[in-house]
């Protein structure tokens, strides 16, 4: 049964034999693949063929992986359900009437349906962890700077990281070992990822580990999600972890801060799509400004326009201090709160998503309601920290994910905690 996980199904062969030899990988369609079109789920880039590979794609090929194709996504990564794709929605392999989550919904569905062994997504405010939770697979958002963003089509570059999706924590960790590490073509990368061996940390040994439960993020969740989450925490306690409750006042402002910053960066990053260097031109008459505005009207979907306009508004004269500056204050506060909490705990835990996967079409009409679904994932991106979503069983037959958040470059702790709750 097809779930429309792929926009382009085209094999890209391995360049050599390595740790991923014989494995197939699905790649989100905002990650550049030389000679294979990369659409970002947008009409604007429907025929765009990158002349180079992203660093992560080079590393996959060198590690022996075969790329299976390019996966469906919310347009330019803007969405939580994969319904804003110009190419139509992907469906959730667990329940075809439901969304797979977003924006890396195609990547999660490809892994959940067995159409690829592994997949790459990108996570700006939860876009790897959300679809992992909704599709019942593992998704990991690395520390900012661990994985190169060279070749990732930028949406909100201070927030986003490329991350792995896999059936198990161990496979996600092995995959992260392949793609992590400094890259001279991305000056925001750091050397902490150069010689990692996260896979060996997936030993399930949480004896003596301190787990801080983020009560602010548990209380807002659906009762069925809460109960699956609590079972996982009980499981950790039974395996010797020490559980404590953590309250962080700053988290109440995370969604607002996230959207102000992400939309502001989007308004700038998406200015390049003008139908001249790339993008559909539409062949409109008129001067430079008129022709651009009409190309962009035709090329972008509603959610992309909404975010570009709100970002332009937030950065415009008279509003910068009110929105953007306050959002940066909130970001600093959230970082400070997380640093404090992680001084007393090895990892922090919450449900990944506060809700079960909605039905297709159920959540699109009200943008604010859609944005609120991201409450548990966006704080991590604002704080530049690593987090993993691991399946925590089901509620009413639908997957629930547990999220573990670690300190910067503390990927070992989160994969260890995640491996302990796997069935």
């Amino acid at each position, binding site marked *: 049964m097809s779930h429309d996980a792929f926009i382009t199904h085209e094999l890209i062969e391995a360049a050599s034999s390595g740790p991923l030899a014989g494995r197939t990988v699905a790649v989100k369609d905002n990650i550049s693949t030389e000679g294979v079109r990369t659409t970002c789920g947008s009409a604007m880039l429907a025929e765009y063929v990158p002349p180079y590979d992203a660093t992560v794609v080079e590393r996959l090929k060198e590690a022996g992986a075969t790329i299976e194709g390019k996966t469906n996504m919310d347009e330019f990564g803007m969405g939580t359900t994969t319904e804003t794709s110009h190419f139509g929605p992907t469906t959730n392999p667990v329940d075809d009437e439901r969304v797979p989550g977003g924006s890396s919904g195609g990547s999660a569905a490809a892994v959940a349906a067995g159409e690829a062994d592994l997949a790459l997504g990108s996570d700006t405010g939860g876009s790897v962890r959300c679809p992992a939770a909704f599709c019942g697979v593992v998704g990991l958002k690395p520390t900012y700077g661990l994985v190169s963003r060279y070749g990732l089509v930028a949406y909100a570059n201070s927030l986003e990281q490329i991350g792995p999706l896999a059936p198990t924590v161990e496979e996600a960790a092995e995959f992260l070992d392949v793609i992590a590490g400094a890259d001279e073509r991305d000056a925001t990368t750091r050397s902490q990822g150069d010689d990692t061996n996260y896979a060996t940390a997936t030993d399930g040994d949480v004896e003596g580990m301190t787990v801080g439960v983020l009560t602010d993020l548990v209380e807002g969740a659906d009762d069925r999600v809460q109960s699956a989450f609590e079972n996982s925490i009980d499981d950790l306690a039974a395996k010797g972890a020490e559980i404590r409750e953590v309250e962080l006042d700053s988290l109440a402002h995370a969604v607002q801060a996230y*959207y102000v910053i992400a939309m502001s960066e989007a308004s700038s990053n998406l200015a390049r799509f003008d139908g001249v260097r790339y993008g559909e031109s539409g062949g409109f008459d008129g001067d*430079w400004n008129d022709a651009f505005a009409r190309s*962009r009207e035709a090329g972008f979907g509603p959610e992309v*326009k909404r975010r570009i306009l709100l970002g332009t508004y937030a950065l415009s004269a008279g509003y910068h201090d009110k929105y953007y500056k306050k959002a940066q204050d909130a970001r600093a506060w959230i970082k400070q709160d997380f640093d404090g909490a992680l001084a007393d705990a090895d990892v922090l835990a919450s449900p990944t998503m506060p809700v079960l996967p909605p039905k297709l079409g159920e959540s699109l009409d009200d943008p604010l309601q859609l944005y609120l679904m991201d409450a548990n994932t966006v704080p991590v991106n604002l704080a530049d920290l690593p987090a993993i979503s691991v399946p925590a069983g089901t509620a009413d037959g639908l997957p629930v994910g547990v999220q573990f958040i670690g300190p910067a470059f503390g990927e070992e702790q989160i994969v260890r905690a995640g491996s302990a709750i796997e069935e």
Partner: protein
Amino acid sequence: MSNGSVDPAAVRHVAGLARVDLAEDEVEAFAAQFAEVLDYFETLDEVPEVESDPDLANVLRTDEVRAGLTQDEALRNAPDTEDGYFEGPPVG
């Protein structure tokens, strides 16, 4: 523009700044949605000022000539080109 209320003229103004034309029904829909979203953003007023000391370091390398894209590769995705250049709409 007053806080918390976004009229269609404000949406058109911002759309002009962002170089995105909008259909009339989009302007109406966005005006209502923007009012709701911006109202929600108002709660950022409660955020205290925070002293932050970002962990930044310069990342420098020697400036050296390396192979880049060829002219053909750089132009490959342009809808219109002429004599090896990008062709854009007329200016002004």
